[in-house]
């Protein structure tokens, strides 16, 4: 692919992501927008109100904490399992991969109400711990599947080589394995982050109505726009912002990934 073609494709992709945000940005800064005016009269009134709203701030903090905790825990819990699943060929491997898909097949609604009942009996209802456990049920298998695909292309000989040079297991993990699968791990974490950030049904089932997250706050607002378009636009913008920031932060790494032991190792995933 020529440089020019690539630039055009990237520009089109960026446009597809950013253009729909233009009305949102406009609305969030709107004071009044009479129907006969091409542009609204701008003000920061809605933003000030949104950022002063304790429910929004609480939801934002809760969502960020949940994302960081769930993504970190699911990464820690799934990394070595995924590595074995991706690099080793053993009897029953396909069955395990199928079982990991099961939580994705079964509609969440079928599970979450059972969870709600059990969680309320064991003191996990309507608190951080309960929400984290409930989300891990869905996102650990998901992360394991994603990472096992990353490890499919991983060459274990690099680790054997390092081992034969006397490098300790911790240093092998840090200096050999992680750099080799870094991009795949980042992509998997981003997918999980987005999933946890947008989780509505699971969170609302095991922690509602006093526990607030951005999705619990944003979805009813979007469906009713009861607080007015400007306030809704502000909340939606805050809802989208972390995901956009993460994508922007990691985009350079994901587009030009040359900083790993062997660039041919995890190509399938990326």
């Amino acid at each position, binding site marked *: 692919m020529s440089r020019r073609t690539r630039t055009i494709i990237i520009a089109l992709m960026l446009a597809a992501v950013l253009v729909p945000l233009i009305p949102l940005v406009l609305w969030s800064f709107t004071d009044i927008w009479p129907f006969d005016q091409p542009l609204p009269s701008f003000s920061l009134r809605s933003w000030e109100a949104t950022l002063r709203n304790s429910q929004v701030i609480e939801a934002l903090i809760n969502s960020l904490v949940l994302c960081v905790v769930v993504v970190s825990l699911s990464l820690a819990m799934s990394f070595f399992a995924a590595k074995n699943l991706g690099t080793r060929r053993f009897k029953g491997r396909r069955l395990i991969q199928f079982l990991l898909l099961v939580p994705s097949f079964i509609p969440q609604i079928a599970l979450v109400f059972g969870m709600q009942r059990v969680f309320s009996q064991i003191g996990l209802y309507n608190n951080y711990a309960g929400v984290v456990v409930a989300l891990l049920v869905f996102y650990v298998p998901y992360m394991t599947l994603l990472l096992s695909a990353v490890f499919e292309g991983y060459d274990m000989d690099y680790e054997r080589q390092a081992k034969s040079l006397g490098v300790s297991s911790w240093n092998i993990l840090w200096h050999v394995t992680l*750099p080799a699968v870094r991009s795949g791990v980042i992509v998997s974490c981003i997918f999980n982050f987005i999933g946890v950030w947008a989780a509505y049904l699971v969170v609302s089932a095991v922690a509602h109505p006093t526990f607030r997250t951005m999705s619990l706050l944003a979805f009813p607002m979007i469906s009713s726009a009861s607080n007015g378009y400007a306030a809704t636009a502000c909340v939606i913008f805050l809802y989208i912002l972390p995901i956009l920031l993460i994508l922007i932060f990691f985009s350079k790494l994901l587009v030009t990934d040359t900083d*790993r*032991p062997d660039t041919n190792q995890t190509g399938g995933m990326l």
Partner: protein
Amino acid sequence: MSFLALEHVSKTYQGMADPVVDDLSLDVEKGEIVVLLGSSGCGKTTLLKTIAGLETQDAGTVSIDGECVDGINAEKRPIAMVFQKALLFRNMTVEQNINFAPRVNRTMEKAEMAAKVEEMLELIEMKGMGKKKATELSGGQEQRVSLARALMTNPKILLLDEPFSALDAQLRVTMRQHIKRINQALGTTMVFVTHDQQEAVEVADRIALMHGGRILQYAKPIDFYERPNSRAVADFFGWRNFVPAQKNGACIECALGTFDFEGCEAADGSVDLAIRPEAVICANDMSNAASTDLPYEGTLLDVMPQGPFTLCRVSCKGVELELLVKATEAPTLGDTFCFGLNKRMMWPVA
């Protein structure tokens, strides 16, 4: 006591009926290059990985410098290994690749490490290339860096698993010379795995020819050309003619005549007299042939040019022989072919 000693080592992989390494014993002296030679699947790489600690043997012991290393993890063994692929870390420079182990393990001071890297670069004849990226190297350079990376850890034993098999023929010759030179300069004990007979002969102080997880013969390279201990060994080393014979003590009797072979360990009775194709001594006519040990007159069945040599299939005294003749002396089909045989290239095998 041997520097590296393997005693009755066996290894069977899960799901396989036959052992990959079967009750194998091997002694390697300090500073020696021993080549494990054999065709694919004969167990040589498994044996190498067992020495390295990357595989665990089912039975037997491995000792290094008098110390049993069974149960010691690969990273704790005084060994370094060079693999078939160079396995350089592509996000690093040549220098970073070479000092990888001491740098990440923090086992060397910075100044000492820098000096050692320079020493290694000089040893592999890549001085001044330390700042180059690993991705900018040729195949031969990559393998040399891999070698330097292994030597950087001061291993007591260096294991090399077909390190040059992916390189072109000319480069392989150069790399073999590098190995010999490094061995002479550092005195590092090396165990080298290859399936290439020529490579084995050029590099080895001793060769262990393997088949079916066992060592068929463990000897100096010249012995495989002069005294193979079995027909399988002779086959592998290019002995193409096997004439049925009877052995009685040192006396061997076959259709081509009677010969004396001192020191042959084959049991008395039926044996094969192995004859290398290069054993032929050419004579253009019978008068010249008469000046050689054993003059024969044969019928030429086939002539196959092979560059500077020509392979001739000859029928002589009821025996078919394949003989390698210099192209300039090659007979043409229909000629009577007169020749002698060099007894140093004949040996009875069971």
